[in-house]
C-alpha cells in the first residue's frame, strides 16, 4: 500500500506544479502545432504543385526533417545556433517542434488531397474551373475531412514528443517529473503520476477530435430536404 500512499502524497504535494507544467506542455504544443499547420499547408501545396522546383524544395525539407531526430533538432535550435541567434528555450522548443511536425502534416495533407478521386478534378476542370478554384471549391472541402483522423493522431504524437523540450529546460510536465523525482527518489510513483497527466490530456483531446470527426462526417449526408 505504500506505493498507493506515495502516489497520493506526490499528487497532493506537487499536484499544482504538475498542473502548471501541464499548461506549459499544452501551450508549447499548441503554438508548435499552429506553426506546423502553416508549414504543412505550404509544403503540401509545394508537393502537389506541378512546379518541379517547388516539388524539390518540399522533398528536401521533408527528407531532412523526417530523417533527423527531434531531439537533435531541438538541441540544434537552442544550443547549435546560439552563436548566431539566441532563442529562449520556449521559442526554440516550439519552433523545433513546429518545424518537425510540419513535415509530417505536409505529408498528411498531400495524402488527403491525392486520395480524392482524379475524376473530381477532371469534372471541375471540364466545367472551366481554373486549377486554383477547383482545388479550393472541390478538392480541399473533401480532402480536409479525410485529413482529420491522421491529423488528430499527429497532434497526439506531438503532444507527447513535446516532453523532449525538457532537455532545454522548458518547465513542462516531463521536466517537472524529473525535478520531483530528483527530490523524492521515487521514480516509479513519480513517472506513474506524470504518465497519468499526459494520458488525461490525450484522452480529453481524443474526445474532442472524435466529436469534430463525427460532425464533419461526409459519408453520412445531411437529411434530404423537400424540394
Amino acid at each position, binding site marked *: 500500500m505504500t506505493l498507493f500512499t506515495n502516489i497520493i502524497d506526490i499528487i497532493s504535494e506537487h499536484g499544482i506544479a504538475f498542473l502548471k507544467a501541464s499548461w506549459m506542455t499544452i501551450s508549447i504544443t499548441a503554438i508548435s502545432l499552429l506553426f506546423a499547420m502553416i508549414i504543412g499547408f505550404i509544403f503540401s501545396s509545394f508537393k502537389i504543385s506541378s512546379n518541379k522546383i517547388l516539388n524539390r524544395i518540399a522533398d528536401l525539407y521533408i527528407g531532412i526533417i523526417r530523417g533527423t531526430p527531434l531531439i537533435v533538432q531541438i538541441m540544434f535550435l537552442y544550443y547549435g545556433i546560439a552563436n548566431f541567434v539566441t532563442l529562449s528555450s520556449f521559442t526554440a522548443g516550439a519552433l523545433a517542434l513546429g518545424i518537425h511536425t510540419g513535415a509530417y502534416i505536409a505529408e498528411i495533407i498531400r495524402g488527403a488531397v491525392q486520395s480524392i478521386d482524379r475524376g473530381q478534378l477532371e469534372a471541375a476542370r*471540364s466545367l*472551366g474551373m481554373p486549377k486554383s478554384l477547383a482545388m479550393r471549391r472541390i478538392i480541399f472541402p*473533401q480532402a480536409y475531412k479525410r485529413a482529420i483522423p491522421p491529423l488528430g493522431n499527429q497532434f497526439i504524437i506531438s503532444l507527447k514528443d513535446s516532453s523532449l523540450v525538457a532537455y532545454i529546460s522548458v518547465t513542462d510536465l516531463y521536466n517537472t517529473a524529473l525535478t520531483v523525482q530528483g527530490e523524492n527518489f521515487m521514480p516509479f510513483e513519480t513517472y506513474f503520476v506524470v504518465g497519468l497527466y499526459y494520458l488525461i490530456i490525450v484522452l480529453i483531446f481524443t474526445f474532442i477530435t472524435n466529436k469534430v470527426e463525427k460532425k464533419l462526417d461526409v459519408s453520412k449526408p445531411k437529411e434530404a430536404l423537400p424540394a
Partner: protein
Amino acid sequence: MIEIRQLSKSFGSLQVLKNIDLTIKQQEVVVLIGSSGSGKSTLLRCLNFLETANGGEIIIDSELINSDKTNLNKVREKVGMVFQHFNLFPHKTVLENIIEAPIYVKREKKEHAILKAQKLLQKVGLRDKANFYPEQLSGGQKQRVAIARALAMEPQVMLFDEPTSALDPELVGEVLQVMKELAREGMTMVIVTHEMGFAKEVADRVIMLADGYIIEENHPNELFSNPQHERTQRFLNQVL
C-alpha cells in the same frame, strides 16, 4: 464547329492516336465506336484538353486551341463533358453541383443560376431531387444530374465518355432518353458508347476507331448494315 487535324497522342512509348483528321459540324451527333484501347476515349479527352495532344491541331469555333496562349478554361466553358463515372461533387447537393460553375466561373447571379438549374433539372426529370446529395441517387439519376451540370454552362458541344457503361442495365434507358432529347434540340454531340441501338437511332455519323486510326466512318444505317472494313465487321459481330 470542331476541326481536328493530324492529331496524335502518346502515353510513353504507346501511341494511342495516330494522325486523326476529323471535322464535326454544328448540330451534328457523332458516335465514336471501337474496341477498348482503340483510342476513342483519348480522342474525346483531347477535345476537352484533359489530355494534351502531342501533335496536330484542334480548332474549336474557328479558334486554334493547341497553342499555349489560348485560355483552356475559356475553351472548356464551351465544351461540356459527361463522364463514365459521373464525377458529381459528393459534398454538394444536386442543385449546388449544377450552380457551382455558372456562379464561380461564369459569374452568374445566384438567383439566375438557381432558376436555370431548376429548369435543367425539370428537363432531365429530377426536379424533386434538387436538395439531395449524389450519394442518395441511383446511377441513372446521377448521370442525368451530371448532364444537367454540364448543360448549365451552356456549352456549344457536349462530349459523352461512355455515359451508360457504369449503369445497371435497367437504368441505361433513362440516360439515353435525355441524350436523345438533347440531340433532337440540335446540340452538337460527340459520344463514345457501346449502345449500338442508340447510335443507330441518334447519330448522324458513326466513326470506327482501331489502333489509334479512324478506319471507317459513315451514316449509321450504312455502317451497321454494310461495314466496309474487316475490323469493323468483326467488331460489330462481337457487340451486336
